[in-house]
């Protein structure tokens, strides 16, 4: 039996965009997507795709990518397919807004996972680089009652178990959990593979499955917002930087040491 893997991947505003391009719409309390910078697949979710493909490299597996949003840049969201994933399922509806409330997102994703018949292993990014919530995967796991390992840097499946090298503050630990399981991964997993030319060709031909809210079976009570955004603002930094100069770099280094000594900092 092939291992049936799902990857949850979110489309986000490019977090590497220049800070000057970062703008907030005060009335909508939302971040304005910069006009000339295309969105990306959340970085940690590309790590999640890579983790799934590494499993697929060593054993029979299918990789289905699921994403929820109001609208998608199809060429962006097809990247996991061109890396080697098998299927793409887009949950697209005007009501699937990108809010700070993870509860709703977890609920929608869970309904879609149930509709697809469930998975042996669900791999997610550790957090989405917009709201930095780090909640949706744990929510999906709780709703589905899955065993969970967060912050993996290596993921292996052997028989009915997943074995994960989990990043800790001073190294890592190896954690085993029974399938079905949910694992989140981080950048410590390493660079995601580049799409191959063949992968890109295959991805162009593939059509994603697109489901709207009415295709999913959701319990209205579970869709009530849990978190309300009261305000959103760009923090002001007030620090005045004192530039330490010198005749050349080395002298500036010496002056810096003197300055810190004078200020009793060292």
């Amino acid at each position, binding site marked *: 039996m092939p291992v049936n893997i799902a990857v949850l991947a979110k489309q986000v505003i490019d977090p590497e965009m220049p800070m000057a391009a970062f703008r907030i719409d005060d009335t909508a309390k939302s971040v304005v997507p910069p006009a000339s910078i295309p969105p990306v697949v959340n970085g940690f979710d590309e790590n999640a795709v890579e983790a799934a493909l590494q499993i697929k490299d060593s054993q029979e597996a299918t990789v289905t990518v699921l994403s929820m949003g109001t609208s998608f840049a199809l060429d962006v969201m097809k990247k996991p397919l061109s890396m080697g994933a098998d299927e793409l399922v887009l949950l697209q509806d005007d009501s699937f807004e990108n809010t700070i409330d993870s509860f709703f997102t977890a609920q929608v994703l869970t309904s879609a996972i149930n509709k697809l018949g469930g998975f042996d292993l669900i791999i997610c990014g550790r957090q989405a680089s917009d709201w930095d919530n780090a909640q949706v995967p744990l929510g999906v796991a709780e709703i589905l009652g899955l065993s969970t390992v967060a912050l993996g840097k290596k993921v292996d499946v052997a028989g009915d178990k997943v074995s994960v090298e989990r990043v800790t503050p001073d190294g890592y630990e190896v954690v085993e959990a029974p399938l079905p399981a949910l694992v989140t991964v981080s950048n410590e997993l390493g660079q995601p593979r580049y799409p191959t030319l063949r992968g890109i060709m295959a991805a162009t031909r593939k059509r994603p499955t697109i489901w709207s809210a009415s295709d999913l079976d959701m319990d209205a009570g579970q869709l009530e917002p849990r978190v309300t955004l009261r305000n959103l603002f760009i923090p002001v930094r007030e620090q005045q930087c004192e530039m330490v100069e010198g005749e050349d770099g080395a002298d*500036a280094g010496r002056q810096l040491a003197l300055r810190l000594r004078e200020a009793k900092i060292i």
Partner: protein
Amino acid sequence: MPEATGVLVVGDSIDGELSPTSRELLAVGRRAADDLGEELAISLLGDTLDVPSQQAIAFGADKVYAVTHPLLAEAQVELSLAALDSLCREAAPRVVLIGRTNEGRELAPRLAFRLGVGLAQDCLEVSIDQETRTLLANRPVYGGNAVAVVSLAYTPQIAAVRPKVYEPADPDSSRQGEVVSFPVELDDSQARSRVVNTVQEEAEGIKLEDARIVVSGGRGLGGPEPFQDLEELAKLLGGAVGASRAAVDSGWVPASYQVGLTGKTITPDLYITVAISGASQHLAGCSGSKVIVAINKDAEANIFKEARYGVIGDWEQVVPAFAEAVRELTQD
């Protein structure tokens, strides 16, 4: 469920002592409880809890829920979760505060989902809105580029508070409080995930998160070797070495060196950055430093907006001369 009241801190102990994070949470929790005119409780999980219970009262708790069970001797997230789930249902707190530590970042969302309520993640500031008697939380979003103020619609209102943002109160050993034992039923089978091996990769010497002085290197160092110079400089200063994610992703130093949003949060007295541009995700982990020094060859680098002292220059010239001068100055 009974009417929700009071503030519950999810506490923990380390080596038989109340953890630093729990002490910080008690300071925040005390203020919130006073603003509400309600009780401040703390939960402690383990097998022997006498010492941390008394410490918790000295640091501000009115009530300690001592959740004892032999299986809780070791912190296993699913068992802690099961215990906290039943405590929250029974004690019905209005507000729950959890430290966003390595364990807390998994525990808090899972507890919130299990209880069917919302969570304010990674909070830098929590307060009580007197009018509505609800929690208001400030939290960084978009990699620290923005701050969101959120409130929560259901009780308990759960907030995961970033460690080291709040100072603990001074302990007062004459404070009175009650210790209530809260028995839970747990069994081994609830712990589905199992740690089979632990590997330590951290550098020797002072721990990055405890160091008073930290020297961090970024992509501009160009390779792993210059980190040896930074190690030496850190040693001279009695500090530790950190890094940006770019340096970690390049494989120059282990992940445990990473400072930032998805790395360590540090609050040293002095933070020296070398060839780091100062992306918001990096600053998210170090903006609590008392003094930031930036050495960068690009005058426009964002790090100079956050730094107290800056040198515009090539680290290859600046750092050796700086280290030499530090050696001279600190020897006499």
